[in-house]
């Protein structure tokens, strides 16, 4: 319940004329928050671009280079099937790496939460 009350306080940004900024703006412009966003971006953007390229390479190659993709590489198994199968493992690996990286995000955002809540109690 104490938690809820505190959140309510945050949810309605106090109008402080001397600062002219809401709690949200203050957090958004803090160095800690910018750090969090930069850390997130440095993982999510490359990971997203990589998976989109890797995934769409499959329909593009299968559709426009069927000869190449039909090449048998392991007995009767062709490149097309192996490439499709690899998508599952690549997706799992990216998910695993993300969870690892996200532990870092959690730590950074916990710092911001702690700092904000401390500030909130003082007021």
């Amino acid at each position, binding site marked *: 319940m104490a*938690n*809820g009350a505190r*959140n309510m306080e*945050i*949810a309605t*940004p106090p109008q402080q004329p001397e600062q002219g900024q*809401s709690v*949200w*703006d203050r*957090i*958004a*412009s803090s160095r800690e*928050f910018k750090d*969090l*966003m930069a850390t*997130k971006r440095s993982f*999510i953007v490359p*990971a*997203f671009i990589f*998976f*989109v390229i890797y*995934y*769409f390479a*499959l*329909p*593009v190659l*299968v*559709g*426009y280079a*069927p000869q190449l*993709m*039909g090449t048998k590489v392991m*007995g*009767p*198994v*062709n490149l*097309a*099937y192996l490439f*499709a*199968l690899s*998508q*599952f493992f690549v*997706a*799992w690996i*990216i*998910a*695993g790496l*993300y*969870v690892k990286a*996200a532990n870092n995000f*959690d730590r950074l*955002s916990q710092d*911001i*939460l702690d700092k*904000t809540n401390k500030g909130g109690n003082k007021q």
Partner: protein
Amino acid sequence: MNISLVMFVVFIAITLGITYWASRRSTGSAAYFAASRQIKGWQNGIAVAGDYMSAASFLGIAGIIAFQGYDGFLYSVGWLVAYLTVLLVIAEPLRNAGKYTMADVLAYRLKPRPVRGMASVSTLAVSTFYMIAQMVGAGALVKLLLGNMVTYNQAVIAVGILMIVYVVFGGMLATTWVQIVKAVLLMAGTILLSILVMAHFHFSFGQFFGAVGQVTYHDAKGAVVVKDFLTPGLRYKPPYGPLDLISLGLALVFGTAGLPHILVRFYTVPDAKTARHSVVWAMALIGSFYIMTTFLGFGAATIVGPDFIKGHGGTNMSAPLLAQALAGDVFFAFISSIAFATILAVVAGLTISATTSFSHDFWTNVIHNGVERKPGEEVLVARISAFVVGAVAIGIAILLGPTANVAFLVALAFAVAASANLPVIVLSIFWRRFNTAGAVMGLAVGLMGSIGLIMVSPSVMGIDPPTLTGTARHLIQAKAWFPLENPGILSIPLGFVGAIVGTLLSSEPTSQAKFNELLVRSNTGLGAEKATAH
């Protein structure tokens, strides 16, 4: 008595037991719509998988692979990879900033009434398309399984009544556990089938893929053909096939992150970190399942054969017929009742997402300005709308009949989700300038663009010879205006363009001013909805 019927009655009894238990546990909006946000990460992961692996996955994919080989497996790939969009972009911000529906996230910075109204329309559209496809599938399946014991109409009505019961009495908690039971059954059945397929080939991948390399069947003209089913291009043929494949990929990879019944699942867990873990659990299950469609589909192609399947219920019966060929009637009944359980669980998930959106977004927020006039009203409205949704779905499914060609409805659901929902969610989280006009226009253009393009696509339009009847027949007998079955490649950019143009044409300082609030909330979880005690 029929074994399928017995197994199915057992499943229904278990799910009704769950519903009774859930109905006695707790009351209130957060309990009804979000299972008090107390579902554990692994539980929600299994439930997401249960919500996602529909009849289209289990019966449909196995059937497409059994008839068109490799190209069918490409669906499997897209359906898993799609979860990276959910994991990297959507799940955590949504859990941090929302309450019950995807519109909650939009309503933070934008004018709530127009945005929620439009988002509700799009949610109901996606859920209804998806649901009708499942209901028609269920009716047709029961007719095949129970023969003359149950008619199509009775089956559709039974599914409709059960889904109403789950949702009205059990809410999100019961729906979650029905999903979990179903997902476990589905995985068990699929693993068993896969092992039996490999046992048939003496556990030799060489023998298995060797057989896949020479599937023999009669083509449309009655000639015997031998095809390598690992070769791409049996379904997606030039000139438009490759483009259609890319378009399908786009709809799957960006549509999943806009499916309302998947998105609402992330509100059932305590926080964003748990939401993240539930996506990872879901990816483990969904990925394993879709890899095993290799054995289901190619197993049916090699062991049962397309000719036999065609004569015994058609493509959708591939997996049950494979079970019958490998282990006899009891296993056939087991796999068939799993297929039926699958449909029931997915339909329940769709119903709860539709009713949540109607009562929370439309009733409370659009009509009554965000105020519940008396406690419990939101839940009451949701319960009433579950009856309406159920009745409408039963009515349309009966009207369409067992032979309706409904495959395009699932494609439509994904296309609308990708073209209408995803652009506005993404832009509202990432673009400071984004505003109400942009959201409404993005949703409207994405919704109408994808529906319009499907209506003039080969999924709906085509000229059939008069001898062709039933499922294969096109709804509109004319040459298709748009060459692709899936509109994603055009409709997704349309949705984004609509949202961007709408934004640029108007100015809304409050939306920009509140961007920091949404940015901080969605990234840190500050002020996020907490789990509630019973």
